[in-house]
């Protein structure tokens, strides 16, 4: 059951490697074009997904 959460780690690969998905100027956020804030937003999102994977992983300590 728990190991199913490892699949979450594939999501950032889809979100970041399919470039046509985010190569836009608009919408702008805090002066950042979409291309930049979209990729920056993947940093905390990936950390969160990895944390979910960590929480559900049978860690030894």
């Amino acid at each position: 059951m728990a190991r199913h959460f490892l699949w979450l780690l594939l999501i950032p690969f889809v979100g970041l490697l399919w470039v046509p998905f985010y190569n836009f100027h608009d919408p702008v956020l805090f002066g950042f074009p979409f291309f930049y804030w979209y990729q920056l937003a993947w940093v905390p999102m990936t950390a969160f997904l990895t944390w979910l994977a960590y929480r559900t992983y049978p860690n030894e300590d």
Partner: protein
Amino acid sequence: MKTELDIPAVAVFLFFFALVTVMGFVASKWRRPKTLASLDEWGLGGRQFGTWITWFLVSGDFYTAYTVIAVPALVYSVGAYGFFALPYTILVYPIVFMVMPRLWQVAKDNGYVTAADVVHGRYGSRMLEAAVAITGVVATMPYIALQLIGMATAVKALGFEGELPLIAAFVVLALYTYSSGLRAPALIAFVKDIMIYIAVIAAVSVIPGKLGGYAAVFDAADQAFKAKGSGSILLQPSQYVAYATLALGSALAAFMYPHTLTGIFASKSATTIRKNAVLLPAYTLMLGLLALLGYMGHAAKLKLASNNDVVPALFQTLFPSWFAGFAFAAIAIGALVPAAVMSIGAANLFTRNFWKAYVNPQVDTAGEAAVAKIASLVVKVGALLVIIYLPTQFALDLQLLGGLWILQTLPALIFGLFTRWFTAPALLAGWVVGLFGGTYLAWTDGLKPLHLLSIGSFQAMVYVGLIALVVNIAVAMLVNLVVPKPVVTAEAAST
């Protein structure tokens, strides 16, 4: 840029440099073992680093001084394309999470110190072990040389001329690495990471304010690229595949290097590594913001002799000189940590997979440490000579090829953790074809990281390292199907 000696900047710089030098020597007494005379202690810090030390050590040697200089420089010169460093350093952590705890466990259970140890233990093949070890050492050497370039850029910005300051810094580094081993960069990494964080947070919060905000910064960069006729703040459709394959290929290669693996092997537990996969992206966020310094260079209308000067020039132009000195010290110390870990990683490979394998198989643990200490000195002297006597471009070209080469060790090192299907001859054949074929492609393209791939109507620029890896894996699978399986060795069967 200013070139005369800047006294407040130099004073701050020297203070921090002296501080980390003392720390480097004191580190031999930190979490003191009975003796430092074993590779587990000298080369891996006792395999006892917990979550925080590992965080500082891995980020300290993964986000190097050269990164701090070169990523903004690339963004300054080409725009959005240079930003591939961000998806690269995001995707690397899911990979670390999935792969590295297993690798750590195998190394811990069998007392392995290097990637080549793991490969030899798994397949019992001296040839495959040697292939992985040689690739590791050769790929690391230019990487150390690049750290020197990063340090030289900072030292030059302070107003020092000539190579003497660089040589002095490296001699000091070599001496405390010799005496303290991995404990020295692990301890110094705390100072390095905190300093880099302070410098970058100051830069990304203060500089845009002085230049009219982030919107103005992006506008200025956009106009500069249009005026120049090259580069752009968005990607061209023809760059999509290049951007994605560079990010993926770099992420796959990142933890194949001896220095990053040394950080992994030195951790206390597999859980420590998984926790770090969650926590290390905090540094990636900083790298993303740092990359934008390239655009701020356009907004500040800097006149630069070299793209690599964009970060130092920004600090000199927009900050008081004492803070510029602080930032340059952060960059220089940011070179010391990876250079130390890289030389230790290369020395571990030499000792375990050449000296112990061929010269003196009976060498005891104290003997191993003695050999590794000498080897770490030789590696650093070699890198220093490369920088002093060969053109800078030579180190840059070798570094590019180094990334391609180290990526070709991935199947041998990683596949065995998940499947028993592959055999040593198959993986060796894949390595040979990937490494030499990839090098040939890069060579004929004029040492460029991208190769134009045409398959039917599909045409795209693709990262050459990733092409070589795909061919490498395909050859390994093919040979595996054709050549009969040998009997599994007892040692390999027990792992």
